[in-house]
């Protein structure tokens, strides 16, 4: 970034007032992902901003209520974001699509228990920059899809602020785009994926930590809208390549599917 840190911090006020342009917002949200002080300040300033509309309350036109209530009847509420420490997802929301919801709930459970999937669709990988939709509630709302688990959030934030954070990307080109973030001092790594293909109900993605000739599983995960952000399992400090394949649900001991993307991560 070309903006000096001092001036980045000062943007909290403009940010909560939406007094930033799109580029500034994106840059500031990247900064927020790694700056606790700014995150806290943003939360506290938002609470102050939320008080201001009390002075400008105006009763809306009566037909607005009816319009909205009839419009929502046609829209299915999105399921909650899976959380490791939360109770199991509530029973199916709409009787009419019960089967579908049950399937989604089962998948969410499976995902939550075995794999820490973080900030899925909100993560946007771009060359030279990573934008995290981790923070602001309106971002989750606005982008509709995002899977966040607190513990992973924390680990991801730690990773992002690690002084020895290294960023590796797959070769630019067509197909799946992958970025690996790794901190040797923390011993953790995360992978961000874009443009993942759709897979069948009996398939999942599996990440592999490859040292020499030996692939070791680094976790199984699902994607949302072709994107996923995952904390890699196992010891990743010695990894030479991180690769992703499609495997049967539950994962395989050794890769059986074609490699979708590989990211060289040798230091």
């Amino acid at each position, binding site marked *: 970034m070309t903006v000096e840190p001092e001036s980045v911090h000062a943007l909290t006020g403009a940010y909560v007032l939406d007094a930033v342009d799109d580029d500034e917002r994106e840059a500031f949200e990247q900064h927020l992902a790694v700056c606790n002080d700014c995150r806290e300040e943003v939360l506290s300033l938002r609470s102050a*901003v939320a*008080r201001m509309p009390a002075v400008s*309350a105006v009763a809306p036109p009566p037909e607005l209520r009816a319009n909205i209530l009839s419009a*929502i009847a046609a829209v299915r509420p999105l399921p909650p974001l899976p959380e490791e420490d939360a109770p199991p997802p509530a029973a199916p929301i709409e009787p009419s699509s019960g089967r579908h919801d049950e399937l989604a709930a089962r998948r969410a459970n499976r995902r939550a228990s075995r794999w820490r999937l973080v900030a899925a669709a909100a993560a946007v990988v771009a060359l030279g920059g990573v934008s995290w939709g981790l923070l602001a*509630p*309106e971002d989750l*709302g606005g982008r509709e899809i995002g899977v966040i688990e607190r513990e992973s959030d924390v680990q991801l934030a730690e990773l992002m602020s690690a002084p020895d954070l290294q960023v590796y990307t797959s070769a630019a080109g067509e197909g799946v785009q992958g970025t690996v973030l790794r901190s040797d001092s923390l011993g953790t790594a995360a992978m961000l994926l874009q443009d993942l293909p759709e897979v069948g109900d009996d398939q999942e993605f599996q990440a592999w930590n490859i040292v020499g000739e030996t692939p070791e599983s680094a976790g199984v995960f699902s994607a949302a809208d072709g994107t996923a952000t995952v904390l890699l399992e196992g010891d990743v400090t010695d990894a030479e390549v991180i690769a992703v394949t499609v495997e049967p649900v539950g994962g395989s001991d050794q890769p059986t599917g074609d490699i979708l993307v590989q990211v060289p991560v040798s230091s």
Partner: protein
Amino acid sequence: MAPHLTPVPAERSSSGTGSDPDEQGRLAALLRRSARGDEAAFAQVYDATSAQVYGLVLRVVRDPAQAAEVAQECYLQVWQNASRFDSSRGSVIGWILTLAHRRAVDRVRSAQSATDRDQKFALREPREEIDTGDVVVERMEAERVRRALGKLTEVQRQAIELAYLGGYTHTEVAGLLDIPLGTAKTRLRDGLIRLRDFFEGGER
């Protein structure tokens, strides 16, 4: 310039939709029911928040028809994303207002060239505010916010109004107020910090 209202100490901890913990808990519960498809619960969320939401959006976009559109989009978004509301990040009304404001600002910015945006901003004359004022607690909350706004310096208040109600970026605010770029950013921040501290101080 002197504040419009004489600031007085925050002697009572008045409540309102923005600050009352009971009300916040009630709205959060209604929103959880909405997430499960409970339209009646959502109607209650609407009733409790729509005057603030519509009033804010109307301020920013100015045209009542457009304000209604933006408000409707906002509530659809709230309905669809009700399960993703996170109470650790603020109140329900705060969340909804954040969504609404962002939409309103997007709307005026995209319509920027078509609109004359050189009109005055109503917050400058807080006494002239339209106020539903049906409920005593709402009046008290509005009064309290006015007192808080009265604590700001003239530049802080103007900068916040231009940004929040005018939908201008801090860069544009600097140009409109004829102050250096970095200063606008700083005035927005220190103005909000002052508001925050006023609210927090009065409630403890």
